[in-house]
């Protein structure tokens, strides 16, 4: 038991040092990196707002357009950037595996945690900035939003770990990820709610865990919007399966990795 606690605190120490280091390499010595963290979701929101205007989109349940888009885009962007950052974590930081206490999993954890912190802050500022602008706080359940973001992050991190581990054995798998993830923007509820879909299409799209996460986060933000289209059980099953798969691959990669 004591050795478990000691092992855990040593790992926390390593991951913490890696997060601090990643902050330097990710955002550099310039503030520009942080600016981009805000600019990316803002640009997306701007583009969709314009499309909504042109298409005379009516948003259901008294939701405002900016909040509606932010609650859809941020879990999605969190997912996508976490995947792309974590899957390259092992390759980019191979030199650090020279220290025996640093293992591939730590490299992935550090990047995942940094993405989570950054985008959560962006999320917080955007939504509350919007609240001040509208002079109306629709918040239903902060906990539900946090859980939704954690789900998105862990699912993405596990997927990234799986890809990154595979890539240590077959580097070309990384190239498959981006085309594979591209359609996700259109089927994850970023600009629609599940209730708006025709039944047949909805039944198919609800297999996509990201759509369920979007529903969950949105329902957490708006008192006026509630969704019957997400299941904690289903999402947990996805995450457990993905994490198990990824951790198994990491074990294999750990043995095969030539430093």
């Amino acid at each position: 038991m004591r050795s478990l606690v000691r092992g855990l605190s040593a790992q926390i120490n390593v991951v913490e040092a890696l997060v601090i280091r990643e902050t330097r390499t990710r955002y550099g010595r310039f503030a520009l990196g942080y600016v981009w963290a805000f600019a990316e979701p803002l640009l997306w929101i701007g583009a969709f707002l314009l499309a909504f205007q042109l298409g005379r989109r009516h948003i259901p349940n008294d939701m405002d357009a900016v909040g509606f888009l932010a609650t859809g885009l941020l879990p999605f962007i969190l997912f996508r950037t976490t995947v792309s950052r974590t899957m390259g974590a092992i390759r980019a930081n191979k030199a650090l595996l020279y220290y025996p206490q640093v293992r591939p999993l730590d490299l992935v954890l550090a990047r995942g945690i940094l993405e989570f912190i950054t985008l959560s802050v962006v999320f917080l500022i955007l939504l509350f900035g919007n609240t001040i602008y509208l002079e109306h706080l629709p918040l239903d359940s902060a906990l539900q939003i946090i859980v939704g973001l954690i789900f998105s992050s862990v699912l993405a991190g596990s997927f990234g770990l799986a890809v990154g581990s595979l890539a240590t054995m077959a580097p070309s798998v990384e190239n498959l990820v981006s085309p594979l993830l591209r359609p996700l923007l259109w089927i994850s509820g970023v600009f629609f709610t599940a209730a708006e879909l025709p039944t047949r299409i909805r039944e198919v799209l609800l297999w996509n865990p990201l759509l369920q996460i979007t529903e969950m986060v949105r329902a957490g933000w708006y008192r006026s919007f509630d969704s019957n289209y997400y299941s904690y059980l289903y999402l947990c099953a996805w995450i457990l399966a993905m994490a198990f798969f990824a951790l198994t691959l990491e074990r294999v990669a750990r043995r095969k990795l030539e430093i």
Partner: protein
Amino acid sequence: MIEIRNISKSYTINATTNYVLHNISFRFPDHENIGILGLNGAGKSTLLRIIGQIESPDAGEVRHYGRVSWPIGFRGGFAGSLTAEENCRFVARIYNEDIDRVIDFTRDFAELGRHFFLPVGTYSSGMKARLAFGLSMAINFNVYLIDEVTEVGDNVFKRKSRKVFEERSSRSSLIMVSHNMKTIRTYCSRCAILTKGSLQLFDSVDEAERIYKAL
């Protein structure tokens, strides 16, 4: 002290499996500097990486008693986009050492001048090795694992490295792999030779040298 038991390691290239290390067991004696000699490709560096627990063997186990360094060498250990100072910071953090002390010691020791504050990616391999060596000396290990790295630097740097080791010989020892007899002689009291996957310890460096030269 370090002990390895029944270590085997093979690499498979184009469907042929080559054993680099085959069923090696060895106890490194306490408080003694041991040199490991071997021809190029004998598996010296692989053995050192396994001893340092950054590479896992196919079979067997490695046991550390006390604090053992990472394998200090030309390769690895530093993020190229970060400066030497930032790299020192990271290493001090993961070894729970005082950050400022580690930075000051390394800066003095490695003699990199203003390069200390420039990205490590711009360094020559000699500078990188000096940084690695200085940084490892800033942390108190019981055993230092050294991969050729003491052969870098001018005579002043070499003398300084030797002096640091002598000062701490009462509490630290080293395991060094090299194919340079002179370096081994400078640092080590005994020698082991790695051939055909087996590791044999000799009582004196002279005896080891005779066998090694006949290889």
